[in-house]
């Protein structure tokens, strides 16, 4: 960057930054082991999916009443986590908050991985996945399903662009520095660096594109989770028939996404030895952000449960009693307490915003967020307006089968694999942006 003040005095030189960040991409033994592990898990679980394909959805626990089970709850969770890309790199980025620079790429990688797998989860929930094209061929404009498919693919596209575009200068560096990379990777770096050599006009041009996308992803990000909530809220079911579902889901997504990001930050910091870049400052600030989004989510939860709980309308009453004190009480309260209230209370103290404690807290928040999706989806289906009667016993309850659980594990392994591969071939911390921020001149050879 040319119009910055002259090089400041700093312990970090451009060479050191490059070396630190590119090193784990070149040799990292543990990573290959981890990839092998993920691939094994995926192959084992793929067999479960094969059984489901062969024998049909009868192998799941889903029946006439609970026709959305584990898979859809998992889908909502994946969409929620993916929203972190829009929160961190675009909303905070547009606000020019500078501590996000080293973690914005991790956020974007998570977004891409989770939204891509979210789309797959929907297809895995279909007994006849080949019919997914029918949504495009015959989809009705009135149907939230069509909106959802549209918005998921759109969000995936923009997230991919927001991952690649800001990475172009870094990829130009990779092209020059990583001499030992495989021919395929070299071709990839060459292709994706778009001949970037950091001329002022290229810089301006690139940053205009990035800013456009950052603005564009805000409505699309809001839309993806709002539309996901409308899949529920557009029906007349107890527990889903509420007007705040859109913002409620978005708030919940920020919580789940931030927790996912903190966990990922921790593992990259430790495993990639990036302590100088992903510092305590990032964790501390993420902790404060987490308190903020948790408070917003708590506020929505109050609205969502206190208002109907006060009135106890016919229909709602059965549903709410089952949640508060019935069959779902343990899941419901543990998601509210362990996944929201207690984290807020802990994270207001600085001690708990240190990397390790906040990572553990985030794991709880993630688990709570997942369970929360489960108790949003399934109990409502078990409490239809017309009484359930004269049906086989297994229609009245829902317990996920081993096949369903395996396919869900598959989706998690797949998302982790995508994150791992992306972080293996791309620098997880933006080299050039860090250098710019520190006032170090960025030099990229042609």
């Amino acid at each position, binding site marked *: 960057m040319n119009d910055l003040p002259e090089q400041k005095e700093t312990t970090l030189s451009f060479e050191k930054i490059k070396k630190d960040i590119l090193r784990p991409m070149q040799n990292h033994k543990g990573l290959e082991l981890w990839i092998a592990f993920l691939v094994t898990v995926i192959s084992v679980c793929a067999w479960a999916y094969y059984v489901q394909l062969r024998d049909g959805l009868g192998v799941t626990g889903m029946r006439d009443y609970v026709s959305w089970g584990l898979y859809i709850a998992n889908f909502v969770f994946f969409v929620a986590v993916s929203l972190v890309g829009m929160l961190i790199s675009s909303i905070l980025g547009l606000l020019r908050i500078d501590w996000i620079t080293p973690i914005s790429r991790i956020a974007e990688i998570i977004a891409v991985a989770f939204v891509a797998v979210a789309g797959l989860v929907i297809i895995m929930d279909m007994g006849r996945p080949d019919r997914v094209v029918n949504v495009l061929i015959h989809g009705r404009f*009135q149907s939230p399903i069509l909106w959802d498919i549209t918005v998921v693919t759109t969000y995936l*596209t923009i997230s991919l662009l927001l991952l690649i575009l800001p990475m172009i200068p870094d990829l130009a560096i990779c092209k020059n520095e990583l001499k030992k990379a495989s021919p395929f990777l070299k071709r990839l770096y060459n292709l994706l660096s778009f001949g970037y050599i950091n001329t*002022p006009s290229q810089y301006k041009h690139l940053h205009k594109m990035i800013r456009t*996308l950052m603005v564009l992803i805000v409505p699309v990000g809001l839309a993806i989770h709002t539309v996901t909530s409308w899949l529920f809220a557009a029906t007349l079911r107890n527990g889903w028939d509420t007007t705040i579902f859109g913002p409620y889901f978005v708030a919940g997504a920020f919580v789940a996404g931030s927790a996912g990001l903190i966990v990922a930050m921790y593992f990259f910091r430790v495993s990639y030895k990036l302590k100088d870049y992903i510092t305590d400052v990032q964790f501390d600030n993420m902790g404060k952000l987490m308190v903020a989004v948790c408070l917003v989510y708590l506020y929505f939860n109050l609205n969502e449960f206190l208002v109907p709980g006060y009135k106890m309308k016919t229909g709602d009453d059965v549903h709410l009693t089952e949640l508060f004190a019935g069959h779902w009480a343990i899941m419901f309260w543990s998601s509210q307490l362990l996944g929201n209230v207690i984290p807020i209370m802990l994270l207001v103290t600085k001690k708990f915003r240190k990397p390790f404690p906040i990572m553990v807290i985030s794991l709880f928040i993630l688990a709570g967020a997942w369970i929360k999706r489960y108790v949003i989806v399934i109990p409502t289906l078990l409490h239809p307006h017309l009484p359930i009667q004269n049906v086989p016993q297994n229609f009245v309850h829902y317990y996920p089968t081993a096949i369903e659980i395996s396919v869900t594990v598959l989706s998690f392994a797949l998302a982790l694999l995508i994150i791992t591969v992306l972080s293996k071939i791309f620098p997880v911390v933006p080299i050039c942006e860090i250098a710019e921020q520190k006032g170090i001149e960025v030099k990229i050879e042609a």
Partner: protein
Amino acid sequence: MKNAIKIIASLFLLFAFSATVTMAQKWSAPASAKKKQNPYEASTKNISSGKKIYNINCKSCHGDATMGNMLPLQPVAPSDLGSQAFLMQTDGEIYYKVNKGNGAMPTFEKTLSDEDKWMVITYLRSFDQNKKASKKIAEVINPEVSDVRILLDINKEDKRIIANLSGLTKKGDRVALQGIELSVKVKRNFGYLDISGDDAYTNEKGEVSVQFPKDLPADREGHVNLLVKVTDDAYYGEVIVDRIASLGIPTNPVNPLDERAMWGTRANAPIWIILSYVGGVICIWGVIFLVLFQLIQLPKLAKNKE
């Protein structure tokens, strides 16, 4: 010691076995339920509406009352609800069992209203030899006949339908059949509307006269599909006539799928929703393609060193 265990085990088995047997055989209502009384009187009207409810909800398993043609279900078959052995029970007992259900017998607690359940019980009670009040229906004895027919006479002005039921005696005479219940129905969108009224039993001339409702909508020409049948197939087998008659009020049918609506086909989606969707997609993807287009120009700018 070993023996003791064996004895205890066999005693236990015996106990368990006898328990299942008694459970399967004896299904009895608690004493408090037995005392409950039927609040409805045994009028012809109530009996006939009870019969209709019975035919719809119970007949598929219990068969025709007194005919003994129940469905042979396992392990416990449904009883003949017109038999004297069954009618020994009090109204309250029957009411309790219909509500609760047992084994293959479904619960009707929520599917039938209280009134409907009492009507069925009133109807069943009409077969009770010990209760005289309700005898009159079954009293008429018709000669043995074959070739049973229903003749329809429709008066368009009064919208009156007169159905005549007759059969051929062995000697070859056509005689009217008396005291047989007929069902007069009109085909609607989903199934049939019963317009027989409360007392659709043939008189001594073998006739039932039914008033067609004055306000029933029909197709453009006012045509309706009428169907008249002997309610109980058990007497003469299935005896049915159907007829298209212009008794209804002519109406122009509206297909709710023809208008633009939320529930419509894709082609009939509301305009605003098509515009919002297509507009949104074009705007967002327009910007995406614009960015992609600019991206392709990035390499060119490398030469432009100003």
